[in-house]
Each structure stands twice: as structure tokens, then as C-alpha cells.
């Protein structure tokens, strides 16, 4: 690697090869292709034969930095490393911290993989967040001995999970939250990816005691609110990677990094300044068409560079937005016949606890050329303008802090740090420059070739959303709290065909960038009637169905918010979010029957009034149930069980929903058949519905659809075909939910959308997999009315009351 690991503030990573990892665990999701007869099946199994075959690139950037896991498999043992993890904690964290860590560790150590796929947690659950940990592995699917058995796949995933675990450990963390796994397959090559956020969890949540108890204790202990999770979990003197630490800007007691990347949602108690925004890094790399092993090698060689570049882009864009933390980071690497695509999406925010990000400096390579210098300074001016504009746009006005604590945010020209580009041809010059003394809060982008120019340009081509529009890929937008009930979930699919002639990386990048930008622009335009609104949970999926085709699928929900109350102080935000968290606890009560099943054995679901009673009473968790659920984790399990059971027991009476009120019908003298019997079913990728209370979970919806047409032209071409199909998928999901007696789908996700066409044969096929939770919700306003007026009456009809989405 031509990268200089001595530079204290540069991006570096190390490449590690693991070849002897075997551990059996259940695999999550692995795509399967038929097993090809392998003439030499033994060569490329998981044995230590060819390193290239089983290469696992470990790349675990916490903050902007990458952590190296040393190149042997010894540190994968389950015992904590004393040098880095728990042993060092005592030095700086004080006795409490050490105690905390020990307790948590003992609680977590019994678990093989202390991984949480959840992304949102109760306040106080996350004690510290170390950073993003990720691992990838390139595998050949045709080398599996026994394709029908899961052993090999399980071993692959176990390998990756161990890797993740060891990364987390090296960051001084004992758990991984916001964990996810994914695969990308092209022919027989498969990239397995896993990523998560290394974290230290509050042991009380994992041991005995209820959620409430934990909250009380947390408050008693007087842990800093709103910044605790930002504090570094690792030892300052023995850091796993070079990092730039400062004292927390919130409590001034503990150290924080200058940037924080995570895969989880923003904790509800975090103090955020201004609004957040969607930040995407997009990258394409051409690769030669190759077969099997050669192909795997080519991919393996490209991957680390891509990871690095994606992070560089994220970092630069974050700086350009004037923000200092990323939440909900999701990096997707897609493999195609002749290219690799990388798409990273995250929500940038300004955390009050972290230092103000420095600007971006660009430096030219040939300083003698006058016109070139002029061009550079012009670009610099543009960048500075953009940063200033973004700060205004996202209302980032951090309180002034005295110089002595933070130092000058704009560094002296000679005192700036720099940002390395991964292009190998540029790195030689780079190392000669010495720019990294002293303060390190600005980035230097070096323009040393046309590629670099492109990069800087692409930084500036990202157009901010039109005014009144915000976007994020987390559940809700940091800094916006007053959502209205107007929501619009949508799916948008685009496929572009690349002109195959003379494709270069730059051209490819530009095409891909334009594709994503245009898609976002289209969304902003289409949803302009909802302004002021926010696109939440923006989920991009990239696939490469054919050589020259790029397919991007986006699912998100647009939620209108009340502009008048939008400018809330961060103080009330924290209060509100705490409130929200406590109502979340109440929501656990949506399964009273499951909790007391022996007392009410004959009813699969209790009458709705019980829900309402328990929901409207603010007394918290009843004592009996508190005893039953010894911990929060148990509760979650219970919830999951209920959901599962609910999907089988569909004995719920289907409430006749007649939500289309007469009053809404304009210009109408009400002919008899005008009253529609079709109920409105809301769909959202979020776990909640703004302004409403979920009173009942009816079960998981998980549906696969395959559609084929042999009359593509007659159905309006590919667009007509897919448009109709997706509309029908939505309709079928809604109908299914309505049949279960529900009126909404939450946590909706389109897991698969595989589209193939053959225009010459006038044919196309599409496979779609969607899932979500069917629920019954009640408007909060209605809930109040009902609970005050007739607390004992059956309120079921109001569950499906006349809500009309627009």
C-alpha cells in the first residue's frame, strides 16, 4: 500500500488476510446460485490455500480513520485484549468506567456475537460509540462442496462476524450495534459484507432490571446527557489508530474524536445543532471481465481502494456541509461483470459535543503556473462559499467557544492537515509534502491530476435540496420534531444504459453521480406539493443487472412538518425525545396478552379498549408485567414473538373501514355508490406513524412477487411494466394488511427488486420481495377524544377512522 501510516491525520488502512477461520453459526441471508461442477473442488475451500480466494479485507474506519486489525487470527479469540480494551479503560475513565465495562463484558461475553441489528435504543443504552467497523470478503460460489448444506456459508459469515467482533474489541468496545450483512453476486463471485458500529453498552440494560430502573439509575449517576456516547471508548494513550482528540464540547470532561461515523440512528438524547442532511458517496471502478479466480482477485484488489475513496468522499462532503458526524451509514458495494459500484449513504449532523469541522483547502501540484493557481484559488473560493452556504442552510450555528479550548478553526496555511487520495500515482508527491504539524482541523485536497479535479468538481456538483426540503436516511431528521400526519411512501426505480464505447472511470463516475443526483432532484420536484417536508429513511439500492445497465432503486417516505414550530431549541428537542423514548416504553405494552397469557388464555388478542386503557394511562409498565420482563432485551424478544404469532393468528375481526368521508368529496351530490369501501392503508419504512399511536401489531408481512410479461411493448415498455407491477405490489400489501384488520404497514422495506428484460423477445421479468409489520394505529387526536369521552367503550372503529392520505 502506498499510503503513509506515519502521517498522524491521514487516512490509512491496512490490508489483512485471514485464511484460517472456521466457526459455525447461523447464516443470515445468502443468495444462492446453482452449484457448478467443479473439477477441482478441494483447492479453493476455506483452507489456507490461495490467499486471494479467501481474502477478507478488513477495513474498519472508526471516525474517518481506519483501524488495523493485526494480521494474525489470534486476536479473534473471545477473551478481551488487555492492551487495548478493558485493561486500559481504568487509566482514563475512572473506576466507574472500568466497573461498567466489566459488568457489560460479563453480560455480553456469554453471547457468541454481541451484535444488535437494531439502530435505535432507549436513552442511556449506548454508553460509548467507537465508530464503524466493517469487513468484506470475496468468495467463489462454485467452490462450495455441498451447495445444499449451509456449512460453508455459515463458515464464511462466522469468519466475517469474528472479524467484526475483533475490530470492535480493538476499539475498546464489547458490542456492535446497527449491525447488518449483505451480499452482492455476479456470476460465481460473491462479495460478503458486514458492518456495524462498535459500542459500549450500559450493562444495566443487559442484566436484571427494567428499563425504568435503568433510566432512574442513569439519572442518579448523573452521566452527561447528550454527549456520553460521543466519548471515546478506547485508551487515549494507546489508540488503535491515529486520531485527533479534543475535550468534549459539551461536558468538557472527556475526550471526543473530531468526527464520528456510525451505522445507527441518532440517539434520542444527543444534542444536535441545526438540521441534518443526506450525504452520499458514489463511486464506480471499471474492472476487466474475468472468470472465477482471476475475477475474484481483480475484485479483491479493487475493494480496498474503493472503500478508501468512499470514505474520502464522505469525509469531504461532510466537511463541505460543515458537519461533524454521520449516522445511519450504509456502504453498498455492488459487483458487476465489468465494474464495481460503491454507494454510501448516511445522514450528516453537527453534534454539539464534537469540535467544529475545519474547512477544506485545495492545493495545486504545479504552483508555478499562474493561470492554474488562479483556477485553484477560484475553486477554493467556491468551496468556502459552499461551506458558508451550507451552514446557513442547515442552521448550523454552534455557540462560540473561547479560543483557548478549541484553537483557531481556520488553520494557518502551513498548519493544515491533508487528505490523501487513494490514487496510487498521486501518493508519491503527497508524501513529500509536510503539512501536518500543529492543528489539524482542515483538509487539504490535492489537485494533482485530472481525477482529482473531477473529484473536487463532483464535490461541488451536489445540489442541495430546494428550500423547504430536507432529506436523511435515518428514521427521522435530526432537528425536526413537529411532524404532521401527512406521509407519502414511494419507490422509484431508474435504469440507465451506459454507452459501451471508451468507458473510463471518470465517465462512469459522472454517469453514476448524475443518475443519483437526477433521481434525488426528481423526488424533490415530484413531492414539492408537500413542502415543508423531509424525505426520511431514503434507501438507495444499486444493482448491475447487465454489462451496461445500472439500476438504482429508492424507497423513502416524505413527511410534511409544521414549519411554524420547526425552530425549536435543542433543549426542548432533548426533552421531547426523552418523552418519545418513554412513550416507546409504553408501546411495549401493546402486547398485554402475551405478557399475561395465562390469565386470558381464550383470546388471541385482547379487546382494543385494553390497549387504549393501558396506552392512555401514563403509569408506565404495570408491576406484574415488570416482573415478567426482567430486562429490556426480554421485552424485545417478546415483541418479536408476538409479532410472529400475530401473523399466524389472523382471527382479528376485520373492521369495516369507510374512511372516505362524505365531506371530502367535492362537487358531489352523493350518488349511492359513491361511498368507497376501500380503506386507506398507510405505508412507511419508519417504525412509527407521526401523530398516531400504534395500538396493535398484527404480524409480519413478507411477500414475494414474480411477474413476467411476453407483451412488453403493449404494456408501455419496461417503465409501464414495472410501474404497474410496483403499484400492484403496493396494492397487494395494502389489501393483505386490510384483510388482517390493519390500517398501516410500518418498517416497510423492499428487499429485492430484480428486473430483467429482453426487448427483442418483447419480454421482461421482475421479482420483488417486500416486508413490513401490519399494524393498527389510532390518530393521537382521536385517541384523546375517545379515551376522555368513553373510556370503556370499544374503540375499535376509530382505529380505522377516516384518515385520508394525500
Amino acid at each position, binding site marked *: 500500500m502506498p499510503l503513509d501510516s506515519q502521517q498522524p491525520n491521514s487516512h490509512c488502512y491496512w490490508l489483512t488476510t485471514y485464511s484460517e477461520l472456521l466457526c459455525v453459526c447461523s447464516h443470515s441471508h445468502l443468495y444462492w446460485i446453482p452449484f457448478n461442477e467443479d473439477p477441482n473442488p478441494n483447492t479453493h475451500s476455506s483452507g489456507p490455500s490461495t490467499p486471494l480466494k479467501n481474502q477478507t479485507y478488513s477495513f474498519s474506519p472508526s471516525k474517518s480513520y481506519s483501524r488495523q486489525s493485526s494480521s494474525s487470527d489470534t486476536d479473534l479469540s473471545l477473551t478481551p485484549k488487555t492492551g487495548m480494551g478493558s485493561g486500559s479503560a481504568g487509566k482514563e475513565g475512572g473506576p466507574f468506567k472500568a466497573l461498567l465495562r466489566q459488568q457489560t463484558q460479563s453480560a455480553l461475553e456469554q453471547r457468541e456475537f454481541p451484535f444488535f441489528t437494531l439502530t435505535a435504543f432507549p436513552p442511556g443504552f449506548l454508553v460509548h460509540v467507537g465508530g464503524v467497523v466493517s469487513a468484506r470478503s470475496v468468495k467463489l460460489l462454485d467452490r462450495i462442496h455441498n451447495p445444499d448444506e449451509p456449512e460453508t456459508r455459515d463458515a464464511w459469515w462466522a469468519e466475517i462476524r469474528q472479524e467484526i467482533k475483533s475490530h470492535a474489541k480493538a476499539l475498546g468496545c464489547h458490542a456492535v450495534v446497527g449491525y447488518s450483512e449483505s451480499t452482492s453476486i455476479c456470476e460465481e463471485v460473491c462479495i460478503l459484507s458486514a458492518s456495524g458500529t462498535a459500542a459500549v453498552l450500559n450493562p444495566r440494560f443487559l442484566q436484571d432490571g427494567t428499563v425504568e430502573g435503568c433510566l432512574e439509575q442513569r439519572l442518579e449517576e448523573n452521566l452527561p446527557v447528550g454527549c456520553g456516547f460521543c466519548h471515546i471508548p478506547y485508551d487515549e494513550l494507546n489508540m488503535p489508530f491515529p486520531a485527533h482528540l479534543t475535550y468534549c464540547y459539551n461536558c468538557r470532561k472527556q475526550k471526543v474524536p473530531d468526527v464520528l461515523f456510525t451505522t445507527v440512528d441518532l440517539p434520542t438524547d444527543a444534542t444536535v445543532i441545526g438540521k441534518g442532511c443526506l450525504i452520499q458517496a458514489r463511486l464506480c471502478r471499471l474492472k476487466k471481465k474475468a472468470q472465477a479466480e482471476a475475477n475474484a482477485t481483480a475484485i479483491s484488489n479493487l475493494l480496498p481502494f474503493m472503500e478508501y475513496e468512499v470514505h474520502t468522499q464522505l469525509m469531504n462532503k461532510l466537511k463541505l456541509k460543515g458537519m461533524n458526524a454521520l449516522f445511519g451509514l450504509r456502504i453498498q458495494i455492488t459487483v458487476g461483470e465489468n465494474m464495481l459500484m460503491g454507494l454510501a449513504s448516511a445522514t450528516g449532523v453537527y453534534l454539539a459535543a464534537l469540535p467544529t469541522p475545519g474547512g477544506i483547502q485545495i492545493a495545486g501540484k504545479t504552483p508555478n503556473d499562474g493561470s492554474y493557481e488562479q483556477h485553484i484559488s477560484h475553486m477554493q473560493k467556491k468551496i468556502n462559499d459552499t461551506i458558508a452556504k451550507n451552514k446557513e442552510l442547515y442552521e448550523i450555528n454552534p455557540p462560540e467557544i473561547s479560543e483557548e479550548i478549541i484553537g483557531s478553526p481556520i488553520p494557518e496555511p502551513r498548519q493544515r492537515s491533508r487528505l490523501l487520495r487513494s490514487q496510487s500515482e498521486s501518493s508519491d508527491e503527497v508524501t513529500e509534502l509536510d503539512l501536518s504539524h500543529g492543528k489539524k482541523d482542515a483538509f487539504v485536497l490535492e489537485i494533482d491530476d485530472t481525477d482529482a479535479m473531477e473529484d473536487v468538481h463532483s464535490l461541488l456538483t451536489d445540489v442541495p435540496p430546494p428550500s423547504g426540503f430536507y432529506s436523511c436516511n435515518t428514521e427521522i431528521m435530526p432537528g425536526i420534531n413537529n411532524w404532521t400526519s401527512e406521509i407519502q411512501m414511494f419507490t422509484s426505480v431508474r*435504469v440507465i444504459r451506459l454507452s459501451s464505447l471508451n468507458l473510463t472511470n471518470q465517465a462512469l463516475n459522472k454517469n453514476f453521480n448524475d443518475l443519483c443526483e437526477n433521481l434525488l432532484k426528481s423526488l424533490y420536484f*415530484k413531492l414539492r406539493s408537500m413542502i415543508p417536508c423531509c424525505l426520511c429513511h431514503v434507501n438507495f439500492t444499486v444493482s448491475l443487472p447487465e454489462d451496461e445497465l445500472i439500476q438504482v432503486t429508492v424507497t423513502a417516505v416524505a413527511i410534511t412538518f409544521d414549519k411554524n414550530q420547526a425552530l425549536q431549541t435543542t433543549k426542548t428537542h432533548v426533552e421531547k425525545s426523552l418523552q418519545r423514548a418513554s412513550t416507546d416504553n409504553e408501546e411495549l405494552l401493546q402486547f398485554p396478552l402475551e405478557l399475561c397469557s395465562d390469565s386470558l388464555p381464550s383470546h388471541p388478542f385482547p379487546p382494543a379498549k385494553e390497549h387504549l386503557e393501558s396506552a392512555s394511562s401514563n403509569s408506565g409498565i404495570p408491576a406484574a408485567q415488570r416482573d415478567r420482563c426482567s430486562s429490556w432485551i426480554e421485552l424485545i424478544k417478546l415483541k418479536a414473538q408476538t409479532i410472529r404469532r400475530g401473523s399466524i393468528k389472523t382471527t382479528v375481526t376485520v373492521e369495516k373501514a369507510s374512511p372516505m368521508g362524505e365531506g371530502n368529496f367535492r362537487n358531489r351530490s352523493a350518488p349511492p355508490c359513491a361511498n368507497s369501501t376501500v380503506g386507506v392503508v398507510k405505508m412507511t419504512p419508519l417504525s412509527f406513524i407521526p401523530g398516531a399511536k400504534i395500538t396493535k401489531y398484527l404480524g409480519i408481512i413478507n411477500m414475494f412477487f414474480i411477474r413476467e410479461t411476453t407483451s412488453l411493448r403493449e404494456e408501455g415498455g419496461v417503465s409501464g411494466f414495472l410501474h404497474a407491477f410496483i403499484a400492484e405490489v403496493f396494492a397487494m400489501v395494502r389489501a393483505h394488511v386490510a384483510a388482517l384488520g390493519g390500517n398501516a404497514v410500518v418498517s416497510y422495506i423492499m428487499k429485492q427488486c430484480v428486473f430483467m428484460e429482453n426487448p427483442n423477445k418483447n419480454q421482461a421479468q421482475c421479482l420483488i420481495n417486500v416486508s413490513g409489520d401490519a399494524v393498527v394505529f389510532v390518530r393521537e387526536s382521536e385517541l384523546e377524544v375517545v379515551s376522555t369521552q368513553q373510556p370503556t367503550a370499544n374503540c375499535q372503529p376509530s382505529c380505522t377512522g377516516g384518515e385520508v392520505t394525500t
Partner: protein
Amino acid sequence: MTSELDIFVGNTTLIDEDVYRLWLDGYSVSDAVSLRVRSGILEQTGATAAVLQSDTMDHYRTFHMLERLLHAPPKLLHQLIFQIPPSRQALLIERYYAFDEAFVREVLGKKLSKGTKKDLDDISTKTGITLKSCRRQFDNFKRVFKVVEEMRGSLVDNIQQHFLLSDRLARDYAAIVFFANNRFETGKKKLQYLSFGDFAFCAELMIQNWTLGAVDSQVADMDVDLDKEFLQDLKELKMLVADKDLLDLHKSLVCTALRGKLGVFSEMEANFKNLSRGLVNVAAKLTHNKDVRDLFVDLVEKFVEPCRSDHWPLNDVRLFLNQYSASVHSLDGFRHQALWDRYMGTLRGCLLRLYHD
């Protein structure tokens, strides 16, 4: 880089009213895009032409899929594919069935057949309405006609029930169906000054008083066909002009009553016999289908034009017609008072509406 596929599907179907209008007006996607660009939407929203193109395509696709449902509006309400709020559904239907005044004047009273459909090209050129839009409007007329043609009950109610139209639009369609069924001639040059509203007004009066439904509300076709028996009976009115004594008596009654009240009294007095003959002969001729079709031509020729050439003010026409109808009750030798009222009551309303420049 070419776009192969580009779609947007919302859980709630997005309807852009402006694009819907462009689609209904029959513009192609590219025409619609350039019209939208001209409306200044790019400047307002900061969007690009490509975004506009994609958006327009999406809406057009959606409308195309909805069109099938719009052909039977109750289906739109009960379908599950597109989740559309009721107010939007109503708007979709109402706009889809709305028609252009210029177009409806061209086809009003014509047989809604393939033959007429072939003439749509000419109508399109003449009116400046796109052929696509003409087709949609023509097909709407035809569809409504086919559905309600043989139906029992009130024409307006039937239309409203099966097409979920607003009251006003349903009445307009009732007029169109009524005219198409009876094939009233409306295209003659001397009728060009009349608007669709004038005809629709007359149609409503005629439906109320001259059809089968006016006497019996349980027959099929009750509102679309004229009461044949009634038309047959109208022959009896002929004695009002054939019997010279009766005509003179009628004239003297009217003249006595209107003396001093009418600005155009002398003209009226001079023309009375001609006018009366005209009106009664129109009634007597209605037994023949051909003459039924020419009803409006006859009314304009025999009554509106003579009065207009003498510059009768509208109020004088009203006074005259009132007196002219009422005086018949005082004619002792005339026995068909009820018949006369049924005929003249409607005709008086129609004539007053038709009497303008």
C-alpha cells in the same frame, strides 16, 4: 448514458392537476413538457428539463393506467391498485368527463356513431382541439349514451349514479344524450348563435315535460324519448290557426290584454297571425321524426327571427308569450287546454332562452 427505465410509484398516487389537464387536452409528452417549461415551472422550482420530462412521463403513465378505470368511474372508487384520496378521485372523474364547449356544439344532436367519429378530424381542425381530446370527449358522450340509453328512472340520476359526476355535469350529459337520441339539428348556420347552454336548457325543459317520464316514471327510455302520444295529440292544436274565428278571437284577446304594455304593439298586432301559425304548425308537424329534428330550426325561423327583425325587446317577447299562452284558456271553443299547456309551457321557456343575439 440513456435512460432505460424511470418510474416513481407512491403509496398514495400523485396527481398533478396541471399535467392532468395537459394529458386530457391530448398533448404528447414532449408537447406537455415544452408547455410546462413555458409556464415557468423550472424557474419556480429550480428543476431541470430532464426532471420535468421524467415527471411528465410518470404522470402520463399513471393517467394511462387510470383511464381504463375512468371509463367506469365506480370502478375507480372500488379498485385497490391506486390509493387516491376521494377528493382527488372526484377531480379525476370530473375533469375526465368535462368537455369543450366548442366541441360539444359540433356533435350535439349528431348520431354518436362511427360515422361521426370519422368526422372528428375535421372538428379537430375547425375547433383547434387536439384529435386525442376530441376522441376522448366523443367516447365519453358515446359511453354515457350507451349506459343510460335504455335505463329506467331519471336520466340525470342515472348518469350521476353510473358516472359519479357532479350535478351540473350530469345535467349537461343528460342534454347531450337527449339531443343525440332525438337527433335535433343544431349545426345549421342560423343556429350558430346558440350556445350549448341554450340547448341544454331547452333539453331539460323538454325532458321534464315532453318525454314519457313526464307522465310515467317507470318506463324504460322514459327521459330520452319524446312522448309519441303527446306528439300525436299536438295535431289537435291546429284548429287554433285553422279555425279563422278562433284565431281572430285569440288575437283580439291578446291584443286587448297587451295594449299599451308592449313597445312593439303594432308590430305584434301585424304579425300575430304569422307567429301563431308558426308556433302551432311546429307543434302539428312534430309527428314526423324529420320535423322533430328540425324543431330548433323551425323555432328560430318561425318565431325568433321575425321578432328579432322587428327588434322586440326580450321583455316584450316574454309578455307576449305569457299572454299568448294564457289567452287560449279563454277560448270557449277550444277543448285541449291541458295539451296546450304542456306544449306551450315548455316552448315558452325555450323560446325565451333562444331569443338573444
